[in-house]
């Protein structure tokens, strides 16, 4: 509690510092209280991260970059896109930083700043969300097929048996479900986007 107040007061009172402005921006766009400013660079996150090997930077490095105000570098890092949301880092972090949620924040900021390198993940999220916004439900079949065709056409033959299996075992529906009150949902999402300043 106190630490929150202290850190908040300490840097909220210093608008002059551009580095902190980026840190604040990230915190502001994070769902919970990010506590990013509390990071002591111990590396628990990087050590815990299952796919760390595939990341440009370990989460810890990313946080250092954020604090240093390296906007471009941080937002174009593939790290948030590799994050599998396993929350190992979150529960182990000795400083209680909401790491996983910061990763989500960085993704959305990267998309807005068009700074991501590989479009695979953003596209996947995008089309996933398109479905939701259209039907109110996810639509694995349409999603998987389109997505694979676009990004891993060469894998498709390999994947075919699995996809086929999923179909024949009736674990994928050809047609999407739609919720009854889709208008209500869409209205809500519209308003939400206004609040967010997206539309």
């Amino acid at each position: 509690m106190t630490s929150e107040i202290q850190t908040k007061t300490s840097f909220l009172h210093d608008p002059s510092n551009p580095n902190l402005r980026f840190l604040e921006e990230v915190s502001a766009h994070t769902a919970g209280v990010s506590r990013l400013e509390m990071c002591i660079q111990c590396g628990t996150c990087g050590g815990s991260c299952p796919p760390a090997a595939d990341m440009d930077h370990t989460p810890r490095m990313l946080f250092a970059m954020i604090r240093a105000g390296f906007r471009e570098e941080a937002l174009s890092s593939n790290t948030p896109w590799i994050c599998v949301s396993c929350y190992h880092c979150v529960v182990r972090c000795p400083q209680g930083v909401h790491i996983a949620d910061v990763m989500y924040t960085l993704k959305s900021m990267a998309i807005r700043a068009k700074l991501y390198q590989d479009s695979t993940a953003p596209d996947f999220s995008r089309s996933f969300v398109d479905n939701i916004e259209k039907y109110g439900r996810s639509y694995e079949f349409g999603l998987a097929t389109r997505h694979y065709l676009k990004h891993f056409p060469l894998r498709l033959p390999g994947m075919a048996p699995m996809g086929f299996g999923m179909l024949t075992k009736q674990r994928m529906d050809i047609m999407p479900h739609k919720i009854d009150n889709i208008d209500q949902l869409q209205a809500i999402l519209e308003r939400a986007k206004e609040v967010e300043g997206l539309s």
Partner: protein
Amino acid sequence: MNDKYLYYPGCSMESSAKAYSESLAAICEPIGLHLEEINDWNCCGATEYIGISLTPAYSLITRNLALASLQADGTRTVVAPCSACYLNLAKADYYMQERPILGENVNTALAAGGLHYDPGSLFIRHLLDVIINDIGLDKVKSKVVRPLTGLRVAPYLGCMVPRPDYEHRWSNPEYPNELDRLLKTLGAEVIDFPLKTHCCGGHMTQIGPNTAFELIRRLVSSADQYRAEVMVTLGPMCQMNIDAYQGEMNRHFHTDYRMPIIFFTQLMGLAFGLNAKQLGFGRELVGTREMLQRIGVEAPEPIEAVPAHKPRMKEGLPMPRMPGDEEVN
């Protein structure tokens, strides 16, 4: 006190995790679990929406809670069987309290649909939590007619149920014992699976298969080292990744693992003496025949392709006609 639970199935329960919902439906009656589905619930956005936006994503999730509170009358508990759904609902509820501004924004959005949700007014819990802590293992034990004696199972919870565990509902975020205790109650031989809460790759199977395959390999090989005959899980995504992508993973690493993975509700059903088909057996891609035989259960006929849905192309999968497909074909 109202003993019903508000039930949020989540999309997968109707598609990739049919076996989960079928088996759940089958065991509800014996253990006296009353689930009332939330009317017109919508997708929770999985891990995708929150990676694109904040308020819209949380509004999407919270619509379900708002609908739930309309149905609440007396009960305050929302049950989700799917890990990702459970976490998203819990998360929204928690963060709307931790960051009041988020709460305000979300409710501003919900207002557009004539809805409102007071964060903290509902308890969001996972199915397993409810079965262990409300129904109780004694009740479960009393229903066991076919103990799974000798069956070596690897309890696999995945990430999003025990972590981050905002409300401290689980014995431990890394080595929770709830699932182990349940499976032991069913008479199974439970291995001390070190990776019980490690990651299956989540959506990486879609966007970074190589990353995902490595994570799947770790789990499957470790379970194999411990001579588990089956992995038992409680999350559709985990089940799907390890089951559906196991073949692909084998191809990738030139390995030949055949580690079946099923839902804990399916095992409960078996122990309760229900028949395998009714429990959704046969829907898995990595067969469970051997495992079933170990406990003397007749494996159901593998589910056959539905003619109507025969693929039109020779290879690859049929493309549904959807707007914005121009660039692909």
